[in-house]
């Protein structure tokens, strides 16, 4: 269990993380979602005691990170696959981490085996591909057999096989009852792995919800229609009590999954249809909309009534 309370980080004037409060629960994969620069990595660094919060608090199982004896046994993290000395072999990299937390040497062999790096254990890390580096970082996170695991953008730059492996690993870790907290800037990735979502934008909490609720609320389904007999179709649908929205370019949209009903009405009144297609707004769009709003809200918050400058104002006046 990880608890964030009013977590805030300022760099001079810039607020990277703004009053973030949420709880990461065990037994599920919690996705930490936000566009690039939203403050995800900063938040994760504060959780590990690497960056000092300007205000607020993070507690791991009720304790501050630096109060944990042998922290790798509580929480394992992959922040950055390159956070290692390239001249050191994979085995020695893991060995020095294990020794610092009193973890037996045998465990180093085990995690190397888990991530499939046994064959290159004696090789220097600088010769590793991005995927191998990522696996070595994950081996380091698993070293202390921790109850909490944290991954920052773990699938970045990986090939499909590596992505698949990481997804399954995260799911199996959560199924063992562990707390899994994983960040990403890709909604589509989260949709496949996460059970719960924490969304931030501009350092603020935008949503803290289960994946199922997020999908239910944000995946709008609608029917897209094109017809040469626009007026007549509008009349027919209107008298059937169906609300139609015109979106320009001759396209009509009807909320909900009513394509069968509309098709039957069109046949009954002999209206020609060029298109009748059920559509689903993607989660990616929903996510973009959610975070875009936060950006907009932010930009307007200082001067709510100030008129927005129009394009060309600069030279038109002169």
């Amino acid at each position, binding site marked *: 269990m990880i608890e964030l309370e009013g977590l805030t980080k300022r760099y001079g004037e810039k607020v990277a993380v703004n009053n973030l409060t949420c709880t990461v629960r065990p037994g599920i994969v919690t996705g930490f979602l936000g566009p690039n620069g939203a403050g995800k990595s900063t938040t994760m660094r504060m959780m*590990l005691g690497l960056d000092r919060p300007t205000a607020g608090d993070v507690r791991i199982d009720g304790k501050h990170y630096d109060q944990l004896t042998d922290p790798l046994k509580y929480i394992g993290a992959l*922040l950055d696959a390159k956070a290692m000395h390239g001249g050191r072999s994979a085995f020695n990299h893991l060995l020095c981490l294990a020794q*610092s937390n009193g973890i037996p040497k045998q465990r180093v062999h085990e995690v190397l085996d888990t991530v499939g790096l046994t064959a290159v254990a004696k090789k220097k890390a600088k010769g590793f591909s991005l995927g191998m580096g990522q696996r070595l970082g994950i081996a380091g996170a698993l070293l202390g057999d921790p109850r909490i695991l944290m991954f920052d953008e773990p699938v970045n730059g990986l090939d499909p096989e590596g992505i698949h492996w990481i997804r399954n690993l995260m799911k199996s870790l959560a199924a063992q009852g562990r707390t899994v907290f994983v960040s990403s800037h890709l909604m589509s990735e989260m949709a496949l792995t996460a059970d719960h979502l924490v969304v931030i934008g501009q350092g603020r909490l935008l949503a803290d919800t289960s994946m199922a609720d997020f999908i239910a609320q944000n995946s709008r389904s609608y029917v897209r229609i094109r017809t040469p007999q626009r007026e007549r179709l509008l009349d027919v649908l209107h008298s059937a009590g169906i609300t139609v929205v015109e979106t320009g370019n001759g396209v009509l949209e009807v909320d909900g999954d009513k394509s069968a009903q509309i098709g039957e009405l069109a046949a009954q009144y002999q209206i020609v249809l060029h298109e009748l297609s059920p559509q689903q707004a993607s989660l990616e769009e929903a996510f973009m909309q959610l975070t875009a709003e936060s950006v907009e809200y932010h930009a307007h918050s200082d001067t709510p009534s100030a008129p927005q400058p129009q394009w060309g104002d600069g030279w038109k006046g002169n």
Partner: protein
Amino acid sequence: MAALQVVRSEWTKIRSVASTVWTLSLAVVVTIALGMLISALSKNEFDNMSRNDRLSFDPTFISFAGMSLGQLAMIVFGVLVVSNEYSTGMIRTSLAAVPRRGTFLAGKIAVATALALVVGMATSFVAFFLGQAMLGEHKASIGDSGVLRAVIGGGVYMTLIAVFSMGVAAMLRSPMLSLGILMPFFFLISNILGNVDATKKIGRYLPDQAGSKIMQVVTPIDDDTPYGPWGGLGIMALWVVAALLGGYVLLKKRDA
């Protein structure tokens, strides 16, 4: 037992990177070889020296002449041990494993210091004996008054130079910046300040000038240095403590 765990971990770190081996080997080879060369040259020069020069002829100190260059390798060792963590990004992994930063830094410095002391001490003794062998009939003996102190002091001097560099690197983090400041400082600036009359009085309080006093057995005739060999080593030790404290305070305070 957290401290012991950190020491074991830091020992694994230090022995598993190539830079440890090449910096320390370079320090050993350069110090000994240059010391032998200068000892051999001094032996041939002795008959042409003035009376005063012959009176203040210090065979022990001459055999340590290689340290002026060898210490640069010790500086590189000290800088890399600490700044490698930052330049590779390893520091974030290290501090996540050992969040008590004081323990982390103390463990790292303790291991690197112990290693530097073993290497420095061995270098100093070998440089002395081989240097004396080159000096022929002008040589000093390890049993002569003050000689053993000077030889042990030479090992301590090399160690303190490395530890001072660790402290500076802990403050500056960047290996390039640390080396860019330390190398010219110890190779050029300190020597210039110590040899120009106007700045001599300040120059002799610099860590290397003060510390190298421990390696002198014969005091030069016109020497008016206000401290003795142990006083000089004490001044150097104060510099080292200051650098380490600075490194500790900044590490404690900064985001990693």
